[in-house]
């Protein structure tokens, strides 16, 4: 029943793409499109939630698609969870969208195009999750890519955006072809393109490794793991903010969904080598993602790099789950999978919250660069508050949701002792240490972002004219912030309701979950480890209240005096004496120097810049060492190939002449 509900959601999303066309007045059209999008989000979220909780797997065959391969659709717990995630976030974004699009003053034609492609983009994501055969999966996958390409190239006035869009679509296409090959390998042997045929096909081990390799590159390119991540930090900032919230928060998760579906469901047997590769690549993505995020001064680019980091964490959880599954400990494999899925939900929530907040800030102040921001908390209190909640959650600090998923991944890693080979055990331990380093660096990064953007004095006048955003934007951020808090406080409820997924995929859930009350999350056993999330919040409130009441008598007696901040007697401190973005990250830049491609120089003083200029550019090694040479190779081979078109007719005739001679010689 609710599979049809999910299809209704898809239909509504497609309707929201088509609806604004006939409407003459732009604002009405945009509002109509976003309300339809919101409705589609709610229906799909509901259908996904019920699908996940029920634990059953529904299947239906639609008459569209190839004549002999009609498009199969399914809804099982895994698909249900991701449908819930996509639907929920798109519903919240549709609350944020209208006021953002209208007040950012886009002209009618591009506003209509924006609404069309947003609808197609969301519909594409739903269809990817619902698809149950290779063909409809690929059609939906690339519909999602193409629609988001148009969104990234939305304001195509600047060349930077169109270049980003081009790189994005090129890598999405390459990734899509890898995935197609992965499905081809599975279908080739199982000679059936439906997922059920692929599941039943038993592949030879080396074919399984090839299929895994192809799928890992394909889905990894779309998820943005390290060597294949270069498109992400350019594409997400180029798109309008509510779209980059959707792309970063949800589209990357659809790629993770595809990877989980491919490895757990379609291939079936998991090898420990896969676990090691995924774990190590996850570690690399997490570490490099956060280190690069620390060095960015463009707010949205920073958030994009931090998406890479979170995807790395998710892949670490999956890697651990692979390791445990291959060494025959399904309960711990289930724990790893649950930790990764939990982090998917958390990242979807706090990353879209941060992007929406960034969108509000950029729209009001018109500035992308952190060095131009400052003191926004006073001018935009609610956005600031929600942004703070987002920063705390992403830095994995206790009362909020980021901490729970990171804690679960630590618990999975700590159970590494169950693995038999010592080498893997020590590597898992080092990976856990890397995760801790990443967590701390993320906290550093988001202290920097919040401290420079929202606290301190305003660094440019544009900040002073920004004021609080409209109701719709405020409510959507508040909803997401509340979601982050609730997911942080009631982890037991969430983990218990997600149990159906590992049961469906791995055959076993967490056995110790049912024992204790909702007060404590004890994934392995009561004795092993426990995290009483609600009691933590309750304890902090009690202690805060106690301290407050204890000091109350003092408060009445001594009044509070305001005076300028301590300036060592040099005189009034202007906003320029504050720590800027690059100075905040300077210690870490010095310590981890080889990670980046730094060119830092000071230009001698010139008439207009009397004090000289300090120029810092942070390059990405992957881009310089991998992609630029690749581009050069193609250009050179194109130059060689173009020699064939020399222009002289006699040479052309000579080609034809020698072809016939060679062919004759071959044949006889």
């Amino acid at each position, binding site marked *: 029943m609710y599979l049809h509900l999910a299809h209704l959601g898809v239909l509504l999303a497609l309707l929201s793409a088509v609806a604004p066309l006939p409407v003459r007045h732009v604002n009405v059209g945009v509002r109509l499109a976003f309300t339809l999008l919101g409705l589609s989000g709610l229906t799909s979220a509901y259908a996904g939630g019920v699908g996940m909780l029920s634990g059953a797997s529904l299947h239906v065959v639609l008459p569209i698609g190839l004549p002999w391969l009609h498009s199969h659709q399914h809804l099982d717990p895994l698909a249900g969870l991701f449908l819930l995630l996509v639907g929920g976030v798109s519903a919240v974004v549709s609350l944020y969208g209208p006021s953002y699009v209208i007040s950012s003053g886009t002209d009618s034609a591009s506003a209509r195009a924006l609404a069309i492609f947003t609808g197609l983009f969301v519909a594409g994501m739903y269809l990817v999750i619902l698809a149950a055969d290779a063909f409809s999966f690929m059609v939906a996958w690339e519909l999602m890519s193409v629609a988001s390409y148009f969104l990234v190239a939305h304001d195509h006035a600047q060349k930077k955006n169109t270049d980003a869009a081009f790189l994005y679509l090129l890598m999405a296409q390459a990734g899509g072809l890898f995935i197609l090959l992965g499905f081809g390998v599975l279908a080739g042997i199982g000679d059936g393109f439906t997922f059920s045929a692929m599941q039943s096909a038993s592949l030879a081990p080396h074919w399984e490794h090839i299929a895994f390799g192809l799928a890992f590159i394909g889905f990894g390119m779309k998820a943005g793991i390290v060597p294949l991540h270069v498109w992400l930090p350019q594409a997400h900032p180029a798109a309008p903010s509510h779209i980059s919230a959707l792309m970063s928060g949800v589209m990357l998760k659809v790629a993770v969904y595809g990877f989980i579906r491919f490895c757990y469901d379609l291939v079936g047997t998991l090898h420990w080598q896969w676990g090691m590769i995924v774990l190590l690549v996850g570690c690399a993505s997490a570490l490099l993602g956060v280190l690069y995020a620390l060095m960015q001064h463009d707010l949205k680019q920073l958030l994009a790099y931090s998406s890479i980091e979170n995807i790395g964490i998710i892949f670490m959880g999956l890697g651990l789950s692979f390791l445990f599954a291959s060494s025959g400990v399904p309960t711990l494999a289930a724990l790893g999978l649950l930790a990764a899925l939990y982090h998917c939900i958390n990242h979807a929530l706090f990353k879209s919250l941060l992007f929406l907040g960034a969108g509000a800030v950029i729209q009001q102040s018109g500035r992308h660069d952190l060095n131009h921001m400052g*003191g926004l*908390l*006073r001018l935009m209190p609610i956005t600031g508050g929600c942004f703070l909640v987002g920063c705390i959650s992403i830095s994995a*600090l*206790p*009362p909020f949701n980021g*901490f729970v998923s990171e*804690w679960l991944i*630590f*618990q999975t*890693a*700590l159970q590494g*002792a169950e693995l038999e080979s010592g080498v893997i055990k*020590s590597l898992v*331990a*080092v990976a*856990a*240490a890397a*995760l*801790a*380093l990443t*967590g*701390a660096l993320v*906290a*550093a990064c988001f*202290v*920097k972002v919040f*401290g420079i953007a*929202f*606290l*301190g*004095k305003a660094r440019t006048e544009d900040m002073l004219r920004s004021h609080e955003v409209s109701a719709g934007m405020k409510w959507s951020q508040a909803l997401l912030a509340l979601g982050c808090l609730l997911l942080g406080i009631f982890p037991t409820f969430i983990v218990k309701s997600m149990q159906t997924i590992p049961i469906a995929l791995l055959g076993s859930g967490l056995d110790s979950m049912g024992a204790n009350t909702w007060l404590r999350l004890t994934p392995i056993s009561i*004795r*092993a*480890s*426990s*995290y009483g999330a609600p009691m*933590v919040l309750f*304890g*902090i409130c009690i*202690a805060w209240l*106690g*301290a*407050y009441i204890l*000091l109350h008598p*003092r408060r009445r007696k*001594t009044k*509070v*005096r*305001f*005076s*300028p*901040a*301590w300036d060592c007697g040099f005189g009034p*401190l202007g906003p320029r004496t504050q*720590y800027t973005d690059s100075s*905040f990250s300077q*210690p*870490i830049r*010095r310590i981890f120097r080889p990670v980046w491609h730094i060119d830092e120089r000071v230009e001698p003083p010139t008439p207009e810049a009397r004090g000289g200029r300090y120029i810092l550019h942070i390059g990405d090694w992957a881009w310089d060492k991998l992609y630029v040479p690749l581009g050069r190779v193609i250009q050179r081979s194109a130059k060689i190939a173009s020699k064939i078109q020399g222009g002289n007719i006699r040479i052309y005739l000579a080609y034809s002449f020698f072809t016939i001679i060679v062919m004759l010689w071959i044949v006889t």
Partner: protein
Amino acid sequence: MNAWILALVQTTLLLLLAPLLSGWVKWVKCKLQSRRGPVPWQPYRDLAKLMRKEMVLAEHASPIFRATPYIVLSVTALASSVVPAFAIGLPTAAIADVIVMVGFFALARFFLSLAGMDIGTAFGGMGASREVTISSLAEPAMLLSIFTLSMTFDSTNLDSMVHFTLTQPFHIYPSFIFSGLSLLLIATAECGRIPIDNPATHLELTMMHEALILEYSGRHLALLELASMLKMLIFGVLITNLFVPWGIALAPGVASLAIGTLSMLVKLMLIGVVLAVSESVLAKMRLFRAPEFLSLAFVLSLLGMLSHVILEVH
């Protein structure tokens, strides 16, 4: 129900004991340097004085600046309720395991750094930047040492860790020695003691923790001072009870509690002496030599883990 009361008593007792420990360390350090240092209970007087003094705030301090002292103290108090100081088996122990404790300290540090940057002066920014850098270098080493311990204890809950060493026969584990040393180095870094940061000085270029609470005054400063003292106490208790838990009360009887308290006081005094000696021997390092100090801690914990995997697992 009386277990909850016992937990509350333990927390308040630790709150009261914290200033005494830092006073004791300062007193021992002065004795070593043959100076007539202040009496050990001098911090109590300072806190009382601060409580009474008038509070001065910066002009455009945001609500975060005013809320941070309360948040930092409440989080540290919650952490202290979780640590098994005098007895194990308290209900509060189930709230958090070691990783959540690390999370509490990270939350406190997060807000403190934000408060530092809120004023918009260079000191706050510098303090925040250095604090966050040092802590991010310390965290992997701390976690790896906890990882090594949990491989043997097969749990990360402090109660079950302590219970394990008490019930098992005495056994010298090389991995414990390495991770113990590593935890000591990390504790000095986290609490901002001498080799990394000098708590006594307000010299602009060297202070880290002090730079963050530079703008605080009156009761806010009192709260923050109490919180940092409590944090040092928690680290002291954590290290002693993890490696030398004998004497801690297993069952909540009056006699065992008394022995537990007494043994806790003795152990704290001893670790105070160790800290004082190390502070007077070592000098404060330049900021960019701190990474070497912390990578030493990381190497120690790594050795601990490897020795556990290679030597101790059959």
